[in-house]
């Protein structure tokens, strides 16, 4: 039971249709691309630092690895981290925001003070610090990003729940003798959730960016290919092999952009007040 979204309104806008299409392509490539293309991104060859658009697709790096293949696998990681981190942050934020907004009083004040204290901290530095302390690893990176991103969702959800719980159909449901928890789950949350969906999409972009930043700093699992790590190792050859930096950089830029554009379109459709 999720809020109904009229996808036709979103797809009728060029920005919405294009970003939705690109996201679908990205998802398909991430899911099936490596299977179709085959090959191992870690495969080392003697063809080092080959320029792109020749025999080696998007070129090779200093160890002779295929940049195009690495980008494919990097997309997987970026999307995985982005989607899982955004989903966890949204779930956590929506749960905290719903309970705070619906039951109010002490729980509300407590949840809002906690979320405020998270919001005044510089997200990226904190993420880097935590990962540096607890060690790198995809699961930890996802958890840290989710932990830092939930307060925004929680505050939005709380505001929505505060609005929806005053609606007459909530009183009407109460008149049927439905318990408060059931009212929150069945009546209030489905009607409060739509704007949160837009924020969740924007969170995906943020999460991808944070992940790229962390792995650029070397705070990611060294055994997986990520765009951030490609950037890091590419910068040493910035003048000799521009493609090692430009392609992963552009990949990060494009991925974050489409999620943000899609999130903005969703936001416009789902948040009529332009919040």
């Amino acid at each position, binding site marked *: 039971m999720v809020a109904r979204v009229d996808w036709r309104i979103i797809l009728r806008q060029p920005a919405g249709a294009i970003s939705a299409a690109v996201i679908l392509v990205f998802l398909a490539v991430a899911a099936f691309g490596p299977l179709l293309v085959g090959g191992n991104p870690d495969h080392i060859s003697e063809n080092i630092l080959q320029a792109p658009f020749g025999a080696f697709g998007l070129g090779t790096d200093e160890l002779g690895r295929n940049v195009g293949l690495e980008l494919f696998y990097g997309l997987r990681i970026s999307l995985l981290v982005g989607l899982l981190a955004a989903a966890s942050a949204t779930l956590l934020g929506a749960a905290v925001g719903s309970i705070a907004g619906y039951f109010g009083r002490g729980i509300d004040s407590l949840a809002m003070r906690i979320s405020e204290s998270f919001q005044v901290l510089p997200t990226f530095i904190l993420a880097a610090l935590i990962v540096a302390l607890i060690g790198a690893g995809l699961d930890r990176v996802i958890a840290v990003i989710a932990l830092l991103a939930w307060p925004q969702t929680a505050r939005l959800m709380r505001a929505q729940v505060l609005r929806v719980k005053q609606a007459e*159909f909530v009183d*009407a*449901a109460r008149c*049927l003798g439905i318990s408060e928890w059931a009212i929150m789950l069945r009546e209030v949350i489905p009607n409060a959730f739509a704007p949160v969906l837009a924020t969740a999409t924007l969170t995906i972009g943020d999460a991808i960016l944070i992940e790229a930043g962390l792995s650029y700093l070397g705070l990611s699992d060294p055994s997986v290919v990520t765009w951030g790590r490609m950037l890091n190792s590419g910068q040493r050859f910035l003048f000799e092999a521009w493609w090692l930096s430009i392609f992963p950089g552009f990949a990060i830029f494009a991925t974050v952009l489409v999620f943000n554009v899609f999130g903005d379109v969703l936001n416009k459709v789902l948040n009529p007040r332009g919040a």
Partner: protein
Amino acid sequence: MIAHAPVYGKLVLQVDDVHMTYHSHGRIVHALQGASLEVAEGEAVGLVGESGCGKSSLGRALIGLNPPTLATIDSGRIVVGGRDVTHLPERDWPEVRGNPVAMVFQDSLSFLNPVMRIEEQIAESVRIHDKQADVRKRVRELVQLVRLPSAVLRAYPFELSGGMRQRVGIAVALGCRPRLLIADEPTTALDVTTQAEIIVLIDELRRSQGMSLLLISHDLGVVRSVCDRVYIMYAGRMVEWGTTAEVFGAPGHPYVEGLLAAAQTERQGRHFASIKGEVPNLSTQITSCPFSPRCPKAFDPCGEMPPTFDLDSPAGHQVRCWLHAPLPRTAREGLNGARSS
């Protein structure tokens, strides 16, 4: 407080001298100042009054919808289906809501969950109150009862007309198998022809389902056409009540006379007859007859104290007005003389 002259049979609702106040940001509103009301099993009772007289506050109190942080019942008693709910804690209200008492609301768009199909909304009430029932079958039955095509089951509220949504609201309420149905201005948001259909439907269902009905309305015609008895409310209390025929046929309170005159001119299309003045401010407890500032017939005692006496009426017709004080005329005049000297 209430004169128990006629025998109505078993009561499903008893409101006895209820005083209720709203507290909001330091402001206090005495919304109910001695409201009393009774509804017997199978009876249709009207509750009439103008905006702000407290009729909706009373209706919401009967089903526990006034937020406990804002509204407190200071004295009096509310008994619903034999259970005293005056100070019922929030966690126990689900045992009362739906059955014995269910509610139909005014604005037919806002009382249905906008993202839930009609079938699911009706099923919700059946599942809670009719544990043995075959939910799908019962939902279909209810939709037939309110004379909607079964196609509406797949629809969302915004796809239905106002009249259809109001029928859905009635079906949801009936799904609870209530003993008392409270209808709070059920037709106010509808156009005139639809109003009549909905009122006829509610009236029929009350009879066929053996429910009692408390119809809250400011529409005298609607109340007159379906209610056995009627209470006229003013400034948080009842000023006149009795059988519909008595109250509308021979009103005793100048306020009720004024209301009926206004309704009369409306029907005849003449220039509106209106009651001069405004509804009293309820931020204080009113210690006189609340209508006296607007009353064309006010005399000395009206400003002194509220009329609280009972009349000796075989049919239970009560008028809370000093004009009808059961004192000998000479004593009343003596009182006047004493007061004015």
